[in-house]
């Protein structure tokens, strides 16, 4: 019991004193767990960063990507990435980010190509994840670039070597979280308690008119927006 208590206290204190202590890894250890083997790391460490870190060896062309896409992806995402029904749209939407109904796709919205490779490799095709070879994923990523007009030559080959050179058009339109600068957050004065607005409240919009609540909604009722993501 007392043996167990001590290291606990020390860790608590070192963290309080400075996060750097814990960071440097010189806090107390419990000697639990075992060292991961290289094969285990290889099996699970599949993430890819925008600078190309984590990319496996491999390559694939637009033309080959089209074949794989037609067979494994088009049933949900459409022949040209335009989507079937309510499955996600993968291409198009350029110039719609300020429109009433923005269409956020790889070409119109995504900041980095690495995300396409990483995500398709880890989660697609939906229902059969991790079934594609690394070369297949390169080819599909190349084809998605082609569907989004980022590359125009169907002989284009994407590989580990040229991957990090490719930029997606919307990369520079992402900004840091600046919510605390918004006027209603920056202004921390006491809110009004009495006679805060002049006239009696009048209704501007009813949810009932749209009637999209499940209990009362018909099958065809659709919300004004595309739902949650």
């Amino acid at each position, binding site marked *: 019991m007392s043996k167990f208590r001590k290291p606990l206290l020390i860790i608590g204190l070192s963290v309080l004193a400075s996060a750097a202590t814990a960071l440097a890894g010189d806090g107390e250890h419990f000697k639990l767990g075992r060292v991961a083997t290289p094969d285990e790391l290889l099996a699970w*460490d599949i993430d890819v960063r925008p600078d190309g870190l984590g990319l496996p060896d491999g390559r694939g062309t637009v033309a080959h990507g089209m074949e794989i896409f037609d067979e494994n992806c088009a049933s949900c995402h459409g022949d040209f990435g335009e989507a079937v029904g309510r499955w996600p749209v993968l291409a198009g939407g350029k110039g719609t980010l300020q429109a009433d109904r923005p269409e956020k796709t790889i070409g119109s919205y995504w*900041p980095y190509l690495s995300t396409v490779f*990483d995500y398709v490799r880890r989660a697609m095709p939906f229902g059969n994840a991790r079934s594609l070879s690394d070369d297949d994923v390169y080819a599909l990523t190349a084809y998605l670039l082609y569907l989004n007009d980022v590359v125009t030559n169907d002989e284009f080959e994407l590989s580990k070597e040229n991957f990090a050179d490719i930029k997606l058009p919307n990369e520079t339109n992402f900004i840091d979280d600046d919510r605390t600068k918004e006027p209603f957050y920056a202004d921390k004065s006491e809110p009004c308690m009495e006679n805060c607005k002049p006239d009696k409240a009048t209704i501007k919009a009813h*949810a009932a008119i749209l009637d999209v609540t499940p209990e009362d909604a018909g099958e065809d009722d659709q919300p004004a927006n595309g*739902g949650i993501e």
Partner: protein
Amino acid sequence: MKTETTRTTRRALLRAGLAGGTAALTTGTAAGARAAGDPAITEIQDWNRYPGKGVDATPYGSPSSFEAHVIRKNVPWLTSDPISSVNFTPLHEIDGIITPSGLCFERHHGGIAEIDPNAHRLMVHGMVDKPLVFTMADLKRFPRENRIYFLECAANSGMEWRGAQLNGCQYTHGMVHCVMYTGVPLRTILNEAGVKPEGKWLLAEGADASAMTRSVPLEKALDDCMVAFGMNGEALRPEQGYPVRLVVPGWEGNMWIKWLRRLEIGDQPWQQREETSKYTDLLATGKARRFTFLMDVKSVITNPSPQAPIRHGKGPLVLTGVAWSGNGRIKRVDVSVDGGRNWHTARIDGPSLPKALHRFYYEFDWDGSELFLQSRAIDEAGFVQPTKDQLRGVRGSNSIYHNNGIQTWHVTEEGSIENVEIS
């Protein structure tokens, strides 16, 4: 089986005999006096006469059959497939600050992983002194802590950016829950592997079919994050990440990786799909905010509300709701019954814990007139819950995420209630 049938039959017979007896009695004697009384009192109820089921009838207990309507519900057209979908906490049916485990909303991207805890591993690697693998048994040998936190999906109230849409707080605000977690501080586990000084970010990954991933700043990881295997005193529910999940207090729910299997340390964020394509907030300018981790100060009146209209008429009325903030505790909640013209400070009851739901009440005498109910929360950092119009004024209507605007419920003279937007 046989005894059960015999007993039921005998009981049915008894009951039939008795009913006949009562009828005879009623016609025979003081029928008037009997009719004046409440039969719930004047008549002997079955449960008062016949013993109920024995102790082991439901070894794992479940709610009363009369509460069968208190369930999570989804909105089928919101998503393309139930495997990657969401359902909602019935906020209007619960009270206090703890959400019962079976009512906590669900959001999965690749369905519910059914994981054998004996086959589950947690790997810690990347910029560490030595990459480690832990079994569930290993994790349970670290010193643990118990903490109560809310978890809110960043898309909670997301539908309402474009105006009043869904009739019921379950649908407008039900992607939030609050439970007590049992687990190990994340820093304890990272420390075991020894984070290198260059390490600035953590990637957390799930073992489900979406292999969900999010980048978490190391500062947050070392502050108050947990690796939790328990909720509300028992093991995590499968739909909440059994056998182990990440807890990222006050930050958007998507980061609380369920079925947690991997923690990698790096010097940059990984720009995963859920922090680029999704969970970025598109502004009217066409620019999009990223890494908007914190869930802002928010509240909603849960009763009365569209799914819980006023059925009792004029007189004493209990108005209640929940408030929460990723910044810490809720300092105050104000309630308005006239659509924000005048505000009354509500009473917060129950524990007031940082980054947890707070329960508020405002009791008043309803005169039967039309009401516009609103609640406005203020957190301990001094942030005041904004109106939806204030939010739209700065951000536009296409942000999807982080809608913490003040909600209005319109109460008619009959007591029916509707989600509205007002002047």
